[in-house]
């Protein structure tokens, strides 16, 4: 049941435009496409960062009975741009007796991991930048590079706060990757593929999002994924790697200017990436809302996949912000207790439950 959704053939159209209409050779066509895709990814990265930071400031303000930035631009919309300009013109200085090489590399590693995972997200049907057959596995692998960056930054800064924070960050990220991975595996069991486009493709059709398809285990997996993802993005009640009250700013204490900017960007984009993966895996990615009524479904199908994807992702982003601005920060032992004593066993149970559901055909499917 290969269904073609709106705008899905756009990349092919562009490819044939370069090759057939302009008559370019394979080399030039691929080169132009690569450069364009790279630019698009980076532009989307920067734009989304600005949107997310603005959203965070407003949402946080509303949760705290404030109205947030109001002065720069209408309704404070230009505030983030002003902040970015400020950050760009700040001096980048080096800390005395720090490990210069690691100090310089660390922010780039963090941002590379963030951009790397970001480029995996399936924006719409046929719009995947990277679509390996083990996509979801590679995605978790690439996101782990960020831990090294955080650890390097803490170590190279020659600052006790930074080292403590880096230790916490590393131990937390390594722990929570466990349940994150296990939740993804339960989704892989359900869809039978590790390819990201395949996972989304399996969720098209009425009530086919994994969270409906896999009912109880999928909903549990989604919840665990959100908790673990929040921890993975170093946010919410799990932001003790940068616990301001204890560790000044944590591993990026000694960074200024764009060095700090990269960590800041990566933090917000990791939030988006985590929400994006949750959307892709559990909420159907770019798959439109289909409820089985032909008229309604065909209207929904006319909305492009990227709108669906961004819409769902921002809903999840809002959920995570809600959690972040509600709960108090956990202590390091509480964080590890939550992961190893509660989430990890729970996600193992989810996998077993999911296997039972799939092998006995207990999943929720409407054959249409």
């Amino acid at each position: 049941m290969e269904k073609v959704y709106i705008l899905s053939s756009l990349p092919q159209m562009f490819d044939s435009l370069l090759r057939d209409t302009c008559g370019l050779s394979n080399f030039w066509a691929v080169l132009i496409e690569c450069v364009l895709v790279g630019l698009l990814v980076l532009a989307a990265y920067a734009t989304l960062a600005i949107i997310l930071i603005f959203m965070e400031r407003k949402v946080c303000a509303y949760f705290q009975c404030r109205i947030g930035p109001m002065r720069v631009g209408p309704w404070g919309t230009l505030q983030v741009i002003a902040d970015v300009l400020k950050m760009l013109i700040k001096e980048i200085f080096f800390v005395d007796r720090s490990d210069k090489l690691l100090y310089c590399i660390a922010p780039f590693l963090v941002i590379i991991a963030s951009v790397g995972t970001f480029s995996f997200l399936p924006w719409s049907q046929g719009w995947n930048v990277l679509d390996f057959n083990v996509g979801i596995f590679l995605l978790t692998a690439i996101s782990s590079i960020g831990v090294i960056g955080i650890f390097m930054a803490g170590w190279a800064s020659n600052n006790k706060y930074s080292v403590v924070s880096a230790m916490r960050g590393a131990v937390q990220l390594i722990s929570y990757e466990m349940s994150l991975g296990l939740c993804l595996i339960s989704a892989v069991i359900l869809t039978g593929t590790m390819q990201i486009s395949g996972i989304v493709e399996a969720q098209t059709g009425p009530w086919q999002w994994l969270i409906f398809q896999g009912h109880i285990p999928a909903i549990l997996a989604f919840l665990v994924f959100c908790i673990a993802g929040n921890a993975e993005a170093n946010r919410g009640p799990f932001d003790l790697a940068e616990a301001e009250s204890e560790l000044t700013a944590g591993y990026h204490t000694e960074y200024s200017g764009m060095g700090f900017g990269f960590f800041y960007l990566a933090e917000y984009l990791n939030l988006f990436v985590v929400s994006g993966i949750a959307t892709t895996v559990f909420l159907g990615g770019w798959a439109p809302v289909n409820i089985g009524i032909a008229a309604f479904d065909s209207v929904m199908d006319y909305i492009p996949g990227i709108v669906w994807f961004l819409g769902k992702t921002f809903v999840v982003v809002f959920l995570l912000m809600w959690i972040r601005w509600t709960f108090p920060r956990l202590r390091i032992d509480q964080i590890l207790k939550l992961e190893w004593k509660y989430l990890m066993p729970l996600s193992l149970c989810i996998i077993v439950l999911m296997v039972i559901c799939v092998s006995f055909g207990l999943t929720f499917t409407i054959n249409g």
Partner: protein
Amino acid sequence: MEDKKQSYFGEVGSALKTLATGLKVTMKEYFTPKTTEQYPENRKTTLHVAKRHRGRLVFKRVTEDEVNDPQIQKRGLKVGDYKCTACTMCERACPNDTIKITSHMETDPETGRKKKVLDDYQYDLGDCMFCELCVNACNFDAIEFVNDFENSVFDRSKLVLHLDKEKYQGGSLPNIIDGGADWSVGTFNTKTK
């Protein structure tokens, strides 16, 4: 402390319950209308300053209603006169030496009674801590605090005011003495002029 040891699943259950309570509280707060004042923008529209707010000290002037008051008539005051008798009760009550009163004695040619006459009532707004002890000490209802709060100037010497010389015309904003706009909780006070 009472030991409230719970079972593994009991802990999970109570944790979820308390977390849900927290989420409910913040979600309610999210949709509560915000009360933040957009101050310089709303100066002339929705700004409310409580009447009892102590912005600065002014001399009370005799009003039309008060002229017929026997006390006022006895002292021979007309509408618009200040009521200060230079008794220096306020000066002595002031913990900061904010008020400096200079006066001289004058003999009434008709009755031969001696009477203090105010030369200068100097009030240093920059020194004042708005405790209102001077107003409480005044026996003649001659001074009061008003809620006129926009008092910033570029030169400290401009804060030294001579209350008997000036005719206080009301605050820097229209109706501010009456409290400005109606005070309302739960609205967007974001209207600009």
